[in-house]
């Protein structure tokens, strides 16, 4: 890891003189340093590693995972956070091109884009990373207990510990502050990994680009004495509650009152603690708290049936994709009470230690409620100590301490070559952080794309031995895993038993089968005993399956001649109280594995050439950025736009709150795209046909009366959105009634007379958040304020009323909401049950709306009425979805592979989406999604060939009748019936080996390799004594 460092020029350490720049060997370095190992940093690292760059993933704490690792579930899918996060962490941990540098911080950065020196200070763990297997004996024996920070102090940990059970790396660490130096851990460690003498290490990394993804820290509500956090035991923060909800957390997944361990019946969530507040550092909105409070209320109720959650809020900001559906379900199906009220203080009731909250109901009556527990939904602050680092790195921060990014380049910092993503840019949720992380990866790669592939190692393996015709010679390796398995299962007995099984010619047990030196032993045994099948009885294949397959391959065997028996998660860990039975079960599992191993066949994954170009569908700001992004990374791009002009909806955006010139930017962008030699633009064009698969698509485009066939490797869908055409609120019945976009246009062209005492009414959520279209169109609250402020600028005396269901000015946009109020704009809240009534009487618009605080209706006669109509998916989406064979969501936007962690991918490989095609969003969000889709596409385009999986399905054409069941059930579009043959054909490169086709086929004509009927049944036979 220590890169070669040229000798420091004389006088470099002296103060006062600027150090001479260090010399670099090449002018662009094909490596990237990613600072921060949370979900954003990990995503960026994986994208880059998959695109041919070397990545150094630097994490301050001992393991990857960040804040997401602390969550129980994620909204709005209620996925288990660890279940979806861990595979990404494991992938990053064992990726060939990623070097993890944990327990480390960046000290300095010098150099220029394309050639940086990053100095990293790595603090000592006192545990050798190359030796520690994470078995945990040391933790068990350590005598020191201290509060566990990961569990928010609700649980204890030892002085030697691993950050959390599923940590990557699972390497333990000694907390030097609390270690008493007893030496027990060193004595107990079977791997000899403890090293008390370890010191700080300084590493110098040579990289071409840097990505900052340092995340955030939780707002500490302690100083807000009115909430009693830290004094009243039953007042907790959202993160405290999250840890309680986790099954391996302090209370085993139960929600319990900290004061007496009793189960709470009524629990209150208080929103906006430390957000939208008057302290100059707390004025912004933390964007995610509304959603995570709803999530926690739902999950808490799931864990503790009968629990009654109340959520006290000011605006419920459920602005993301399908978030409003989640909110509606919470209220209607889960009975969670939502109370519009900011809780100002909490009183503790003695002796119960319950908490009393006073609020006003909808009618204005004062109510008192007593709760068993209160959860403070705290905001997100910039990460700890980031200000100092930003200063050293010369990165500009905004007034809240978050990273400043330009509107049209939302992943760039003020320092060229250093990019940024995730919560450090602005509080944002996981899907936005992940998409932005991919965006940062694309921009980081773009500048150094000439150096792609230079620093990555391509693994080479010995030639595979032909063993298919040999008698099976099975080697069984049984793992003790320290005491994890060995402490329950009689491992030597299992080893002895294995030797008796048919086909087994060698068996042994190891303390840690996964350790580095055991891999050498396995290879040696394969040679010694001419093994042609390997069985490892240890943990779940999820942890070390790929590792063992790699070892087997290194020994010259086909990696699919390998089988695992899980005698840890499926045995020792769940049967720890009955060791004798556990041992018998372990033997049975080994017998089953050996039986299958006898029937294993070598599998050779298919590899296909990749056409190094991309088709971008849609020529708005998203499509243009995507095409340019591909081109700048050295790939050809075809941009297809159905209108005769490029630009999409931006043609109707004349000014922005930031003061940026949208049309000026677009003109420049369009010019760049049209003049780029790698981009071919088709306007007035439509797709006529589409076929093929990952890396090899064929599309016919019709334009100018002719048709052209294009060959390309990937597709990016950026088809945008349209404003809803409405008839609601008397639209069309008066020239003064218009949409927000129409108003913007007229203001820009000075067609609105705002002089004198003009009155404007602006109604939000027209067509959004209704039955039939439940989603929020996300941008309208801000866009309406934009128009309103423009009017006030032209005439401060203009009277403006904004009628809204909630004001969803999230993140730093909250500042504009505040400005609007300060300018005297009046905001009136309504809901679906009390919508404003609009009529046109004698050429005059009349708007009647009830103001609930005053308890009376207001009848306003405005000169102008602006309607914030919904952003809807273009009707063409239906046709395009059919053509590309990709799904649409229930709201007819395109549906991604996974809402949280794969927002820009379709389940069908090689096709990506970005921008409004995904869901309504702002310009900066469109841009980073466009960048993100480019990065995802480059993980494919950067290869010459793409290797599929070995475990794929195969068709027995004799049995196949072409019924198309497999085609209908395949989630990846990997099997289709060839109409000419009336037989199913598998596109092996797309097949993920899920087995659904095999299960569905009525003729048993399609089977899964590695999981054939014969193989599975042989395992079943073992159970019945076979």
């Amino acid at each position, binding site marked *: 890891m220590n890169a070669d460092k040229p000798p420091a020029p004389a006088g470099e350490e002296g103060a006062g003189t600027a150090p001479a720049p260090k010399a670099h060997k090449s002018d662009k370095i094909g490596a990237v340093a990613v600072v921060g190992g949370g979900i954003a940093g990990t995503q960026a690292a994986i994208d880059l590693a998959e695109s041919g760059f070397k990545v150094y993933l630097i994490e301050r704490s001992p393991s990857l995972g960040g804040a997401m690792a602390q969550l129980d579930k994620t909204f709005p899918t209620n996925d288990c956070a660890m279940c979806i996060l861990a595979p990404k962490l494991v992938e990053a941990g064992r990726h060939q091109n990623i070097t993890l540098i944990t327990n480390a911080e960046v000290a300095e950065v010098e150099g220029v884009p394309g050639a940086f020196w990053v100095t990293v200070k790595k603090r000592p763990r006192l545990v050798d990373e190359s030796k520690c297997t994470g078995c945990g004996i040391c933790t068990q024996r350590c005598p020191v207990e201290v509060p566990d920070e990961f569990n928010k102090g609700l649980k204890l940990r030892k002085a030697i510990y691993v950050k959390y059970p599923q940590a990557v790396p699972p390497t333990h660490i000694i907390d030097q502050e609390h270690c008493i130096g007893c030496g027990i851990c060193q004595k107990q460690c079977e791997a000899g990994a403890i090293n008390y003498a370890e010191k700080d290490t300084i590493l110098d990394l040579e990289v071409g680009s840097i990505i900052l993804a340092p995340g955030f820290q939780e707002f500490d509500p302690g100083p807000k004495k009115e909430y009693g956090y830290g004094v009243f035991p039953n007042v907790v923060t959202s993160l405290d509650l999250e840890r309680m909800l986790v099954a391996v957390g302090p209370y085993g997944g139960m929600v319990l009152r900290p004061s007496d361990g009793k189960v709470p019946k009524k629990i209150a969530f208080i929103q906006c603690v430390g957000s939208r507040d008057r302290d100059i550092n707390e004025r912004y909105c933390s964007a995610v708290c509304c959603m995570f409070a709803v999530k926690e209320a739902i999950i808490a109720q799931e864990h503790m049936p009968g629990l009654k959650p109340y959520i006290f809020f000011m605006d419920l900001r459920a602005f993301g994709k399908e978030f409003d559906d989640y909110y509606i379900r919470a209220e209607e199906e889960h009975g969670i009470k939502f109370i519009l009220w*900011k809780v100002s203080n909490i009183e503790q009731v003695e002796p119960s230690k319950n908490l009393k909250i006073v609020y006003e109901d909808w009618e204005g009556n004062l109510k008192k409620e007593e709760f068993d527990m209160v959860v403070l939904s705290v905001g997100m602050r910039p990460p700890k100590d980031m200000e100092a680092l930003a200063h050293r790195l010369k990165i500009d921060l905004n007034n809240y301490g978050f990273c400043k990014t330009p509107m049209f380049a939302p992943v760039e910092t003020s320092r060229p070559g250093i990019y940024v993503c995730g919560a450090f840019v602005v509080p944002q949720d996981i899907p936005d952080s992940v998409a932005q992380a991919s965006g940062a990866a694309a921009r980081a790669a773009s500048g150094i794309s000439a150096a792609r592939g230079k620093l990555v190692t391509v693994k080479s393996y010995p030639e595979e031995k032909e063993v298919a015709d040999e008698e099976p010679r099975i080697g069984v390796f049984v793992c003790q895993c320290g005491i994890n398995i060995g402490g329950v299962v009689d491992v030597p007995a299992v080893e002895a038993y294995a030797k008796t099984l048919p086909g087994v010619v060698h068996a042994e047990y190891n303390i840690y089968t996964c350790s580095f030196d055991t891999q050498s032993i396995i290879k040696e045994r394969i040679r010694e005993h001419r093994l042609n099948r390997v069985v490892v009885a240890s943990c779940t294949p999820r942890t070390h399956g790929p590792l063992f397959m790699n070892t087997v391959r290194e020994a010259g065997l086909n990696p699919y001649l390998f089988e695992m028996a899980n005698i840890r998660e499926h045995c020792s860990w769940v049967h720890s109280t009955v060791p004798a039975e556990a041992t018998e079960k372990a033997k049975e599992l080994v017998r089953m594995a050996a039986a299958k191993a006898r029937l294993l066949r070598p599998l050779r994954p298919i590899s296909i050439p990749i056409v190094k170009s991309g088709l971008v569908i849609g020529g708005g700001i998203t499509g243009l950025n995507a095409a340019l992004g591909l081109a700048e990374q050295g790939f050809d791009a075809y941009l297809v736009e159905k209108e005769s002009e490029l630009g999409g909806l931006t043609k109707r955006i004349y000014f922005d709150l930031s003061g940026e010139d949208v049309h000026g930017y677009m003109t420049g962008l369009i010019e760049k795209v049209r003049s780029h030699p790698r981009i071919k633009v088709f306007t007035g064009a439509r797709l006529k046909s589409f076929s093929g698969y990952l890396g090899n698509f064929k599309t016919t485009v019709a334009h100018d009366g002719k048709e052209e066939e294009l060959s390309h490797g990937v597709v990016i869908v950026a088809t945008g959105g349209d404003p809803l055409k409405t008839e609601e609120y008397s639209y069309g019945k008066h020239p003064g009634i218009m949409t927000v976009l129409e108003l913007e246009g007229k203001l820009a062209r000075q067609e609105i007379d705002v002089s004198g005492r003009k009155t404007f009414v602006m109604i939000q959520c027209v067509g959004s958040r209704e039955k039939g279209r439940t989603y929020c169109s996300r941008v309208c609250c801000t866009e309406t304020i934009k128009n309103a402020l423009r009017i006030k600028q032209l005439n401060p005396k203009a009277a403006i009323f904004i009628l809204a269901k909630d004001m969803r000015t999230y993140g730093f946009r909250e500042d504009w909401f505040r400005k609007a109020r300060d300018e005297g704009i009046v*905001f009136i809240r309504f809901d679906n049950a009390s919508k404003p009534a609009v009529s046109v009487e004698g050429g005059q618009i009349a708007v009647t709306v009830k103001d609930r605080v005053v308890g*009376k209706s207001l009848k306003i006669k405005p000169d102008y009425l602006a309607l914030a109509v919904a952003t809807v998916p273009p009707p063409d989406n239906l046709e395009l979805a059919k053509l590309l064979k990709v799904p649409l969501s229930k709201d007819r936007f395109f549906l991604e592979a996974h809402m949280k962690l794969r927002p820009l991918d379709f389940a069908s490989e090689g096709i990506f989406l970005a921008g409004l095609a995904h869901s309504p969003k702002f310009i900066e969000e469109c841009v980073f999604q466009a960048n993100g889709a480019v990065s995802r596409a480059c993980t494919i385009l950067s290869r010459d060939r793409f290797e599929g999986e070995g475990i794929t399905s195969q068709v027995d054409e004799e049995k196949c009748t072409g019924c198309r069941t497999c085609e209908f059930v395949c989630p990846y579009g990997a099997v289709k019936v060839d109409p000419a043959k009336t037989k199913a054909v598998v596109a092996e490169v797309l097949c993920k080996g899920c087995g659904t086709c095999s299960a569905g086929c009525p003729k048993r004509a399609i089977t899964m390799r590695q999981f054939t009927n014969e193989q599975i049944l042989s395992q079943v036979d073992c159970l019945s004594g076979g």
Partner: protein
Amino acid sequence: MSDDVIDAETLDPDFKFEIAKQAGGENMKLCFQCGTCSGTCPVRAINDKYNPRRIIRMALLGMRKEVLCSDFIWLCSTCYACHERCPQNVRIPELMMAIRNIAIREGNIHPVYTSYVTTLDGHGRLLEVGEFENEKRIKLGLPGIKEEAARVRKLFDHTKIREKAAGKQADEKACKTEGS
């Protein structure tokens, strides 16, 4: 028009700006109706006639007459609890002062305040100290208090407070608006 509907033409859209220009009222427009003040206010807890959130809302909407002629703007005890907690720093006690000052200019004043002025004018202090009180003070070892109204009266002469307190400066606007 029914009792429950306010015609916007009777509202004064400049009222909030007028308040903003008055010392203490600068931040009123920032109010986003969260309810913190009403939830904290000890006066509201016993008398829902005084509801700071509603008062601010009425002022923001422009219900000038209702606000200035009301007696509820005089009920704030200036305990400052809301001021401590308001998330937008509206500074409500000071806002109430600002509105009161505008009200007085229009000739509206709560009788209790008038009596404060009268008492101060007569005794130089809000609580009279007579023989009875002084006897008690001396018994407890405290010095007696001599009422001195001269200085206060000088201030009153200078600021014309007696006229304002009596409502004499008003020229019959504000409370007497057309229709309702």
